[in-house]
């Protein structure tokens, strides 16, 4: 801290009454008014530049390594099924396949576990090229209806999926209407794996956004059926697939939690997945995956990006610091002397 004294010349105290200025020449308020508060004036000297980059490098690189370690120890299996599950005869017109209700949509695939996977193993479905963040789509819901049910009359925001046959749809809107309806069942060899599908949504959503005594009504009764339908006997707050789906994703490629396998999987275990491939992503070229992954403190799913980002930032800081140090050593210039 350096404190610079004012070079005040007017110090006569004279007649202090009735003056434009108070003659109190000290105190925080005076120093504030004179713009002379205690200050800290760091100067960017080559030394401080080198130090700052050095410190940043030495901090970021270990952080990166820790993050990388965390993400590397996650075991993740992602299996794309949208193409595999289409029968050969429909390979050229997948849209026809998905629209043809006479064709069975069930499909079973086997995947092998590479490494030991420790429970809980999270199961996600991943969609790609699906714009859940399209403004038209995001807007098309009614939060009050979800919470209060049919009491909420004004559901204009749900356009274009508000009513069918003159009756309001509950839950209304494009998001609910396009509910994802593929389903997955897992088995290790022949023994089915128990999939816990409870508590896959945010607690606050279940408790405060979706009504406990609100039941689906007039849902998917229109001429054009979008996605999945809902059991009208189950209140919305327990329709967790819907709650998960209603949380619109940020980006066109997103994962949503489907369930949790609560047993460990060993390396070389073969898991068979029974997929009901109902959801139409073929007309807009969207990809579908099913993902099984273990969890670490950094999250469930493998993503080494953050670790790499730390490493890159840290390394470049370190390099910059060395560069500056070299320049400074080779060309030392005392400050204050112009060239």
């Amino acid at each position, binding site marked *: 801290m*350096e404190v610079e004294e*004012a070079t005040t010349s*007017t110090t006569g105290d004279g007649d202090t009454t009735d*003056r*434009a*200025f108070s003659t109190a020449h000290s105190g925080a308020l005076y120093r504030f*008014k004179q*713009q*002379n*508060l205690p*200050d*800290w*004036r760091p*100067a*960017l*000297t080559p030394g401080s*530049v080198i130090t*700052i*980059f050095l410190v*940043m490098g030495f901090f970021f690189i270990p952080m990166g390594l820790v*993050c990388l370690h965390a993400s590397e120890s996650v075991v993740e299996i992602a299996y794309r099924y949208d193409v595999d599950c289409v029968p050969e005869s429909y390979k050229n017109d997948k849209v026809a396949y998905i629209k043809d209700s006479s064709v069975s949509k069930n499909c079973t695939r086997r995947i092998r576990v590479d490494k030991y996977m420790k429970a809980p193993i999270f199961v*996600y479905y991943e969609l790609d090229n*699906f*714009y859940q*963040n*399209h*403004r038209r789509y995001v807007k098309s819901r009614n939060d009050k209806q979800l*919470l209060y049910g049919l009491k909420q009359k004004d559901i204009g925001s749900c*356009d*274009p999926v508000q009513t069918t046959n003159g009756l309001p749809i509950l839950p209304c809107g494009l998001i609910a209407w*396009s509910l994802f309806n593929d389903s997955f069942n897992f088995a290790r060899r022949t023994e089915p794996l128990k999939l816990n599908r409870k508590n896959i949504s*945010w*607690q*606050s959503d279940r408790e*405060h956004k979706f009504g406990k005594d609100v039941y689906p009504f007039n849902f998917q009764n229109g001429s*054009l059926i*979008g996605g999945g339908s809902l059991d009208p006997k189950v209140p919305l707050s327990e329709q967790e697939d819907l709650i998960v789906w209603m*949380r619109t994703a*940020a*980006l*066109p490629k*997103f994962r949503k*939690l489907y369930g949790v396998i609560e047993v460990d999987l060993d390396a070389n275990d073969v898991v068979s997945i029974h997929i009901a491939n109902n959801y139409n992503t073929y*007309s*807009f070229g969207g990809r579908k995956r099913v993902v099984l*992954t273990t969890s670490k403190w*950094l*999250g*469930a799913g493998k*993503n080494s*990006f*953050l670790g790499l*980002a730390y490493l890159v*930032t840290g390394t470049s800081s370190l390099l*910059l610091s060395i560069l*500056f140090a070299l320049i400074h050593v080779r060309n030392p210039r005392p*400050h*204050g*002397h*112009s060239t």
Partner: protein
Amino acid sequence: MPEQRRRKPRKIRPSKLYSFACGRSGFNQADQSHLGQPGFSRVVYANEPDSLSFPSNNISTTKYNVFTFIPKSLFEQFRRVANMYFLITACLAYTDLAPYSSTSAVYPLVLVILVTMLKELIEDWRRKQQDNDVNNRKTLVLNADGKFKYSQWKNLRVGDIVKVQKDEFFPADLILLSSNYEDSICYVETMNLDGETNLKLKQSLEKTSFLQEEGDFVEFKAKIRCEDPNADLYTFVGSIEIDEQSHPLSPQQLLLRDSKLRNTDYVYGVVVFTGHDTKVMQNSMSAPSKRSKIERKMDRIIYLLLSLLVLISTVGSVFFGIWTKEDLEDGKMKRWYLRPDDTSILYDPKKAAVSAILHFLTAMMLYGYFIPISLYISIEIVKLLQAQFINRDIQMYHEESDTPAHARTSNLNEELGQVNTILSDKTGTLTCNSMEFIKCSIGGVAYGRGVTEVEKAMAKRRGSPLLIEEREDENGTGINAEGTKIKGFNFTDERIMGGNWIKEENRDIIEKFFHLLAVCHTCIPDVDELSGRVSYEAESPDEAAFVVAAREIGFEFFQRTQATVSLNELDRLSGTIKKRTYDLLNVLEFNSARKRMSVIVRDENGKLLLLSKGADSVMFERLSKEKSDYEEITKVHINTYADAGLRTLVLAYREIDENEYAYFNKKFTDAKNSVSADRDEKIEEAADFIEKNLILLGATAVEDKLQQGVPECIDKLAQAGIKIWVLTGDKLETAINIGYACSLLRQGMKQILITLDSPEIISVEKTGDKEAIAKESKQCVVKQINEGNRLISAIRNESFALIIDGKSLTYALEDDTKQIFLNLAMGCGSVICCRSSPKQKALVTRLVKTGTKKVTLAIGDGANDVGMLQEADIGVGISGAEGMQAVMASDVSIAQFRFLERLLLVHGHWCYRRIASMICYFFYKNIVFGMTLFIYERYASFSGQAAYNDWAMSAYNVFFTSLPVIALGVFDQDVSARFCLKFPMLYQEGPHDDLFRWSRILGWMSNGTVTSVIIFFLLTFSFGPQSFRSDGQPADLAPLGAAMYTCCVWAVNIQMALSISYFTLIQHIFIWGSIALWYIFLLAYGAITPTFSTTYYMVFVQELASAPLFWLAILCVSGAALVPYFSYKAVQTSFFPGLHDYIQWMRHEGRADDPELGQVIRQASARATVGVSARFDARINQQTGRVHHVVQTP
């Protein structure tokens, strides 16, 4: 006592003293014929006030009135492009197009407009109060009962008869009826009008001079017919009809508003022009609303951003259109989940083009964050606070007059940091308008040890121990015997003071010298009955200084009668004080053409003496052929004095024999009584005849007292690279003297003098042919300007000074010559324009302003400077003096010229830096935010979905980023005030516009883009499709948006911390507080019911706070986002440092007070050509060593 006082001067008729100025009968009868015609139609009945046909005497300088305030201020608001844009946005926000909720979009605009209007209201209110101060002044007005009663100025009506007393201002334009002098003359000080300090003599018509008592007015009736209101101060055409008889009126009878009655106890007058009809108000232009250069440039940046906005909105809507169209092809739905078959016009694949166009509007609103809505209001708030700091600066507070500095319009603060040229008035601004007798040379011996301001400044600049010596000096003998300071007298020399002069060798000459000073003048003495001390009423302060000097030496002038002048003086033989009376025969008074004054007196021995004093240029040629042995040394002394900025006069005398006098007297009396057109010439001829063969006595040096600290201040300003022009109404010689005194001129500087005093011009002028005069004069001026230009281009290493007089200026400022004149002026180190009218001052200011496109600052104290103050980019008024006009027309007022140094070098520099950095930073932070929104659109198929929650978005500018930027704008300092003053060249950053040039602005914008790209990609990829929490929940739009927002808040605030190098508690609180505020907002907003907080319901508590990835990502992203800027800054300060970087380093290493380094820096910057330092350097170069000599003599 006032009674007695009044009687005394009535004994004499002062008009006798003025051969030239009085009794002129040369009325042009042709002028009178205009009366009654258009332009000359005013009819005023004296004593019959008329308030219906003429405006009241109320003046108003406010911008708004009750009715115009709302429309006019709103209009001013929406003249700003950005505000217009926001208005349109606000209207559209109520449609379905809006990407966010309507209220969240409208409240910032309403807030901004209201606060700005409030600010305008307060400022105008203050102006109103100042008007009221003037309007409520009181003056004596004759009421219906025939009594003079005090009445407010604003109630004055045309035709009222008023009585104005000594030292009062005239409340309106008056026709002089009579004064306390028998011959009805009065003295008027017109400093407020034309800046001249000499008193002007006015005389009423004889017909009205009988009006002396209240009773005389009861029966008085007169009809005045005169010209209509106009701005010409020096003409007046009219006639007064008394008792059916018409008498012509001339400017000689016109007393102008805002001039002041001097040396006259009272006058009576009739009001002819009131309020805005008065000549002084006609001269003033309406207050223009000024905008600073930075603000004007800011508008252009806003245009740039608007086009950027249009560009990216277009890009967005084109993609939106294409993708929308593709959603429905041949009846097949692509993105079926959007129901392209059942749509509104906003998203209609069948009419994709229309949807795209509508979407364009949505995008314009969404990306509106590029245009910082709170920028204008933040700047206004910042400037108001900056202005408060200017107002509260104790070092710009003048204790004696209890006047602080006052920034009257706050929107020019940063302009103070960019001043290129200062145009300064002289009297009352540079000088105090008091003259001090300081030195004299008598019979070749120099007397006087007083130290002038210039010498003080030179000594200080040299930093020599002599300074201390001087101080001791001042404490020792600088004050006279009684220990009090005498006005007009600053002379110390024990050789002749206290009666010691009789011991000097040349005592005869000394005696004659002071006799001359005591006798040759037009002052009127005023003896205080109680103390017996004599004071003088003089036409000009230098006159008074001479008489006071004579008195102090021991030649006390104490009485003047119609024909005699009496002194109390020491009788050398008896050694006692003796009264001596001279018969005053003739007075040949001073005027600017003659440049000398003489009296012819008969002393007690009956000897006839001609006593003469005048400018050296005219006096030396009138000396007798037999040269006195001290003539040469006297000339040397005069040059020394002149170089020190002193006004010199040469004193000489001769004895006249009776015959010669008789011949002269006849000739002179004839000339005086003649009524022909060549009367003046005849008088001149007679005077010329007698004023010759003079014997030199010596020379006087009077200091036109500079205001305290003026030379130092000018030196600092010159070192800061600011050009200083002096525009004065004063005489050429006076102006040149002051030029020397304040170091704008120095010996060795080439002076380019442009005047119309050449004999050819004078001879043409005698013919009276106006066209010929104009043609000839113009040619002459152009010739001189071209010569000057040639000279400048021919000689490189010289500094030049341009001195031009008012008459030449008229021609130089004409359209076809002004460019070459400006070129000449720009090539000169200093420019002095003398005898310039208020209008010319304004025109010169305009020429500099528009011709150079640089920032001009005008500084002045009188009403004659008003035009100039209003024309300049910044007008600075000197307050504390009596007149308020200049202050009222100014943008900033200060009590003393020397405060200009601190105002510009400290406050100006800081404010410029602050505002420039603030605006750049503003654009940066908005681009960071806006670009993240735009990049996000790329991943949301340009549908207009915002990445952030509505309310969070609209709070970005208001809560999370505004306080630090305001702190930057109000408090930031690159270097402390002490270093600002120590290294004035730092100021050059302003005039060069280093901190607000396009490269810097675009640099900040690209920095913003880089930051946002880093934030967006690093964050989205880190949050990537996987779960960001160990409990398996993946991030949807709400937590990802909130995290991205958090990164923006961190990055933008840390960027702020990086870009400033001045931290007080305030900065810390604001920067870290803003970040904390965002978390508080997340907590608070997330806790509100989900129907309001929608997606952000519990977003922090439940989703983000417990995820380590969130915190790690914030750290990494914010850190990485700042690396580019920090690297740039490190490279820039290490390898291309600015001056402030040097100073920061030096201070950091504790070497800032190393004088050697200071010198290095000073030399690295541009060298000043004027100022004390330059003068000092020049002297060093000359190697004369005279500096030492001057100070060491005593």
